[in-house]
């Protein structure tokens, strides 16, 4: 047994560790070095260059704004969807299947779908025109309509990214035995009280996972933004992409990459702390 050969677990884990080290840690170290060095010597010159670029503040602000708007809406919608579908008996699988369709679409494709809806000659304008709401083609995605552009991107992101949250939440809800809600109901709790005082605390682990995953992904938003707004709506990953491809400056791109990583790690830590899951209080 394994007691006699304690190295067996390590042996079995080794390939995955080696794989990760090779393909993740090495590039990570390289990126960090690329970001924090200049001509082979440690330096903050790249960071300075990033911070003083006119798009830097806008991209930070846009990314955070988008995250702050999109993630809570996605969680709320996913909770509503999960709660509703748990009441459904027959056809539940079909509904879930339809709801998870956006999961199978790449983010660039999703961006292009929404582009075809919202561009000047798109479906949205056609609809508004035929209803007589607008007299001529309106533009929603230009730099002159920043609020419309923001809303368009937020809507596209919400449409694309809610499914994964819902999948996690539905899995969490399935773990909660119905007797807890029934007991609460018998002892006088209405639907809202049951949701806030029973369901939500009991799906805390799922909620935590969903929040971490979605927030990290939200900080990495790129393709949808790029498809809809191009450079009219700078975001962090978009800037990294531009520095790398347009400006051919790999070092500043690397600083962006490191910054995104730090923000994601910080967000994860905050969630882990704020939504601490106490194993003692789980079913």
């Amino acid at each position: 047994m394994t007691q006699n050969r304690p190295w067996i677990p390590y042996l079995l884990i080794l390939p995955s560790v080696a794989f990760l080290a090779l393909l993740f840690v090495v590039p990570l170290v390289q990126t960090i070095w690329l970001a924090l060095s200049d001509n082979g010597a440690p330096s903050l010159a790249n960071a300075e260059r990033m911070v003083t670029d006119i798009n830097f503040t806008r991209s930070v602000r846009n990314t955070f704004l988008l995250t702050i708007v999109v993630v809570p809406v996605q969680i709320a919608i996913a909770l509503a969807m999960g709660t509703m579908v748990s009441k459904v008996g027959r056809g539940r699988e079909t509904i879930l299947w339809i709801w998870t369709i956006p999961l199978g679409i790449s983010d660039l494709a999703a961006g292009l779908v929404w582009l075809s809806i919202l561009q000047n000659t798109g479906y949205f304008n056609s609809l508004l025109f035929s209803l007589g709401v607008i007299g001529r083609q309106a533009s929603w995605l230009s730099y002159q309509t920043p609020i419309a552009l923001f809303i368009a991107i937020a809507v596209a992101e919400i449409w694309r990214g809610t499914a994964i949250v819902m999948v996690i939440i539905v899995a969490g809800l399935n773990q909660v035995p119905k007797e807890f809600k029934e007991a609460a109901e018998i002892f006088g709790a209405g639907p809202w009280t049951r949701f806030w005082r029973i369901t939500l605390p009991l799906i805390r682990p799922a909620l935590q996972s969903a929040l971490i995953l979605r927030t990290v992904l939200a900080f990495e938003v790129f393709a949808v933004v790029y498809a809809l707004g191009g450079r009219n709506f700078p975001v962090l990953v978009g800037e990294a992409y531009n520095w790398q491809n347009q400006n051919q400056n790999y070092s500043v791109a690397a600083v962006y990459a490191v910054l995104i990583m730090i923000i994601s790690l910080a967000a994860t830590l905050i969630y882990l702390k704020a939504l601490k899951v106490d194993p003692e209080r789980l079913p």
Partner: protein
Amino acid sequence: MANIVIDRIRKSFGAFQALKEVSLTINDGEFVSLLGPSGCGKTTLLRIIAGLETSTSGDVRIGDRSIIGLAPKDRGLAMVFQNYAVFPHMTVYENVAFGLRMQKADDTRVKAQVEKAAGLLHIEPYLDRYPNKLSGGQRQRVAVARALAVQPKVLLMDEPLSNLDALLRLEMRTELKTVLQSAGTTTIYVTHDQTEAMGLSDRIAVMHNGVVEQVGHPVEIYNHPATRFVGGFIGNPPMNFIKVPVSNGQVAAGEEQLAAPKDVGNEIVLGLRGEAVELAPLPQGLEMKVRVAEPMGSHLLLTGSIHDQPVRVILPASETVKSGDTIGLKLDSKRITWLSPESGKSFPALLA
């Protein structure tokens, strides 16, 4: 008034009939047990009364008001769940306090009620703990305390003491009985355990395959089971059923002739409680072949056969019967139940 009227309740899950026209009336302040084997529909019936399950047809009235269609919280009852359903994310204190909090009771009342219920169920030491760390029996008592804390008019309990050790169970059930009686709580108590049902109940409803087979006072059910199932389910050892020939309306038990019910065929089933016999010399008594004699201290348990059919009888501990003996038994004719061999139902006409 909180009398409960269960009126021709049916419940089907798909093609399966879990309850087949169950009717039962429970008077205000009465303690009624639902007793029956696993899967007979006890929990389903409780859930219908509580409003957690909709019946396929039929009506339930509490205090002469139909509660079908009312939300569970508007039915004015409390329930102890078979699997406890104690909230894992709340302390024991908050669990017990839950119903009172929902009623917006002030803190002094909550505290008083929680302490009273916790004291009764001996769970004060755990009030600050989370249920996760408690044993099954402790959690079960939290569930009972949570239900008692709201001082309900109607209390539904689904095997609330099943996980306690014998000693604690005995103590708890006495205390439960006292509290519920003094509060005048109308109680439906589900149990597998017949001694519990016998000891606690004003009346017992014996259920089997989705049907209430008999409702009555524990002693009445014990002595005069309405069906073969009830006789076999209640009592330890269960009632003996011996198929005997009838000639001229009489059944021979040794030299004694017992009067059989009128209008029976040439066979009848004699239902005999194991202790409703005494030793008699042969051939005067009914012949029994003893296969095993087990001295139990308080009594002597004999397993064997009468008319080649298996029986178990109980004699005083002082009798000296050994395994392999053939003995004679005198039957207590007043304690015999006659049952139809076809339907398995007893002949009620003779009970009077």
